């Protein structure tokens, strides 16, 4: 192994931690084998390198979708002494990168016990809004004519509270991903290349290209069989979330631009978007949880299950409480349901930069880098000459 020479020009090479060293070890084996090149973006990206620096390792770890294909196809997986398990090694580093790039950095420690973080945030959110409801109304069982929830909390109060928290979450994520992007040192590319790379990366994100197994039959879940259900349930979740987000956005526009105040009828745009999105956000997380419970124990990092499941559960509860609120908005339960829903949404927003939510941001950045990089000439032309 070539040792670091302090006299050599250039910047200091960061020392790798245990998880990163393991990825480096495994990538060295994989780079000498390359059988998995057709599965996903990780392996073609790997073949552009002979050595794996910390930046490369962070990039590859976030490029990995933990689909499991390479593990089941691996001639070097345990019980082989090389004990190659790329999804697991990548998952461990991935969590390290979420924590390391979190902003403010001290908050990154919330990833260490993320299930607990989500539970505490949810508890705090619930407590806050239950107390607020009690303070405002004197009880938790208040009906409002026409389901007018702004009779309990004024619109502008909610908009300010949630707007501020959401704004902070977006800022924290943006700073985090910017630091990640700078550290993984994106290659220089022309504007034209960047545009086409951005289009390709967006399509890869929107379609979850790399959960298709490379052959279109899907990824692995319980064993070496392929399934498209993980991709489908993720689509339900992602697009359900986006529709709910769109519902809120449209409602906000209605309120501030058009002066139309909630509650809106069921057949209005925001409510329809919310219903369809909410349905997706029930089916998706429920399906993902079902798959997660049946997931092969060798996939990914067992210790991250609380983070994954906690996030899935929170999404499910946000959606379920939102739909319940809609269904019972004209009953006595309005006050209680509103407090529960707002508490959970608040917990979701608060933890956005410190939960599984970050995976989408970091992975999208890694996919963009991959799309840019593959448009450059390959610096390594091993054996192709």
């Amino acid at each position, binding site marked *: *192994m*070539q040792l670091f020479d302090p006299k050599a020009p250039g910047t200091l090479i960061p020392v790798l931690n245990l998880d990163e060293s393991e990825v480096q070890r495994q990538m*060295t*084996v994989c*780079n*000498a*084998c*390359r*059988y*998995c*090149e*057709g*599965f996903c973006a990780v392996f*073609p990206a790997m*073949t552009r390198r*002979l050595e794996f620096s910390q930046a490369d390792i962070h990039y590859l770890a976030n490029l990995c979708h933990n689909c499991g*294909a*390479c593990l*089941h*196809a*691996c*001639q*070097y997986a*345990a*019980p*082989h*002494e*090389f004990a190659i398990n790329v999804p697991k090694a990548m998952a461990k580093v991935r969590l390290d990168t979420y924590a390391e790039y979190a902003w403010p950095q001290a908050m990154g420690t919330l990833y260490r016990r993320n299930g607990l973080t989500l539970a505490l945030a949810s508890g705090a959110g619930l407590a806050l809004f239950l107390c607020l409801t009690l303070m405002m109304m004197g009880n938790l069982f208040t009906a409002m004519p026409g389901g007018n929830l702004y009779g309990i909390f004024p619109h502008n109060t909610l908009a300010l509270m949630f707007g501020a928290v959401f704004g902070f979450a977006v800022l924290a994520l943006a700073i985090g991903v910017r630091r990640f992007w700078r550290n993984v040192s994106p290659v220089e590319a022309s504007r034209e290349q960047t545009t086409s790379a951005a289009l390709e990366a967006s399509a890869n994100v929107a379609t979850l290209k790399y959960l298709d197994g*490379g*052959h279109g*039959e899907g990824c692995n879940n319980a064993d*070496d*069989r392929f399934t498209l259900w993980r991709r489908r349930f993720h689509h339900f979740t992602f697009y359900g979330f986006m529709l709910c987000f769109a519902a809120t956005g449209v409602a906000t526009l209605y309120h501030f631009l058009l002066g139309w105040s909630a509650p809106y009828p069921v057949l209005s745009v925001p409510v329809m978007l919310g219903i369809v999105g909410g349905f997706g956000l029930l089916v998706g997380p429920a399906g993902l949880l079902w798959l997660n419970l049946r997931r092969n124990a060798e996939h990914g990092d067992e210790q991250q299950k609380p983070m994954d499941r906690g996030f899935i559960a929170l999404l499910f509860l946000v959606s379920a409480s939102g739909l319940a609120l809609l269904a019972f908005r004209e009953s006595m339960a309005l006050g209680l349901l509103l407090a529960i829903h707002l508490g959970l949404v608040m917990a979701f927003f608060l933890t956005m930069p410190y939960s599984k939510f970050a995976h989408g941001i970091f992975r999208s950045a890694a996919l963009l880098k991959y799309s840019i990089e593959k448009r450059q000439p*390959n*610096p*390594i*032309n*091993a*054996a*192709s*000459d």
Partner: protein
Amino acid sequence: MIDVLVIGGGNAALCAALMAREAGASVMLLEGAPKAWRGGNSQHTRNLRCMHDAPQDVLVEAYPEEEYWQDLLKVTGGMTNEKLARLVIRASSNCRDWMRAHGVHFQPSLSGALHVARTNAFFMGGGKALVNAYYRSAERLGVNIRYNAQVTDIELNGGTFVAAHLSARDAEGQRLPAERIQARTCVLAAGGFESNREWLREAWGQNERGEWPSDNFLIRGTRFNTGVLLRRMQQLGADFIGDPTQAHMVAIDARAPLYDGGICTRIDCVSLGVVVNRDGERFYDEGEDFWPKRYAIWGRLVAGQPGQQAYSIIDQQAIGRFMPPVFPGTKANSLEDLARQLKLPVAPFVSTIQAYNAACRVGTFDHTALDDCRTEGLTPAKTHWARPLVKPPFCAYPLKPGVTFTYLGLATDATAAVRFNGQASPNLFVAGEMMAGNVLGKGYTAGIGMAIGTAFGRIAGVQAAAAAGFITRSSQEPQHAAV
């Protein structure tokens, strides 16, 4: 009673089991390894050499029958059976739809293997993905699959198969009792004997230096190919073909594991530098031909050197031009330091390199062509890609012979029948490494092992089903069985 018993669990065995099951026979497959190690050497493979007359999905241009045959003739030096070889070649042209139907996916040639983009169809994910797909398909079709089921004896009545015997054995912490499994017909596809150290020793013997060369061999293939069934068939008087020292044998990294090193242990920089033995001397033309056409001879070359050791030496000019090795190279800024680190005699090593450097006549270096960079007045010469090793750090990789699979096997015919004294058995068939030597007497060309295993596995499956009473159209025309 079971109709067809398939002994083995790699590509050939699975092809046989699937074809027999598709013909309607009830099938049991006995894999000697535990489930985690299933698939024999097939788990280490990556492609299939395919005849094609026009571009096909992942295959570019054309690779006609005659060219395929000439390639095979060349690498085997004529140690092949033209009839059986052409059967394999033709079968390779049209077996892939069937493979796909059983879940195998193909992909274009891998980076670093573009030289075979025309001739070889790569399995997406490699051979283990293929093996997994076949096992899933076999399970779905109702093939009875058993692991930890190594067959130790075959019961014959004359040349007719009666039953397979499994000895009592310990497997995955369990004591399994001895068994006798009867079947109407049987396919033998249990691999070669590359992981049987005693047999290798017996075959390779002792050399003039008093060494037992095979003691220093590493096995790139599966640890489960101990040749138990092969030896038993020898004792039972089956007709054999081949030389027990002939094998797929390449020079691999000396630090590779003793078994199952697979693809990643290869060292691909031989043609970019020089190779010396443990005395610090060169012993063969490193630039004789393109590396993909030469890698398969270097295992035997290293086996002939003292201690069965050698070192591939390169300098900075070679970095990035060959597939990255799995283990790091030994690096040094001077030849003397490199020799010391490698524990080679310093003076002879340095003088070997200096003599080589002085003999280099550098023209226009081009690794994609048989270029004009060569040595003059040096023995052995380096006839292409000869550039002086002058740019430190120098880098060295230790080499040992690595055996992938052995070629000694059962003589067979176009029906894949096992033969006794020239007579075909009515119900005992053979496929894969156990008969590859019929087609591949020596040498190797990428993807031919899987081509033989697939062709003869499928023929054996059809013939075994037919012998059990399940006649299909293809079983009546054995020479076209896989066409």
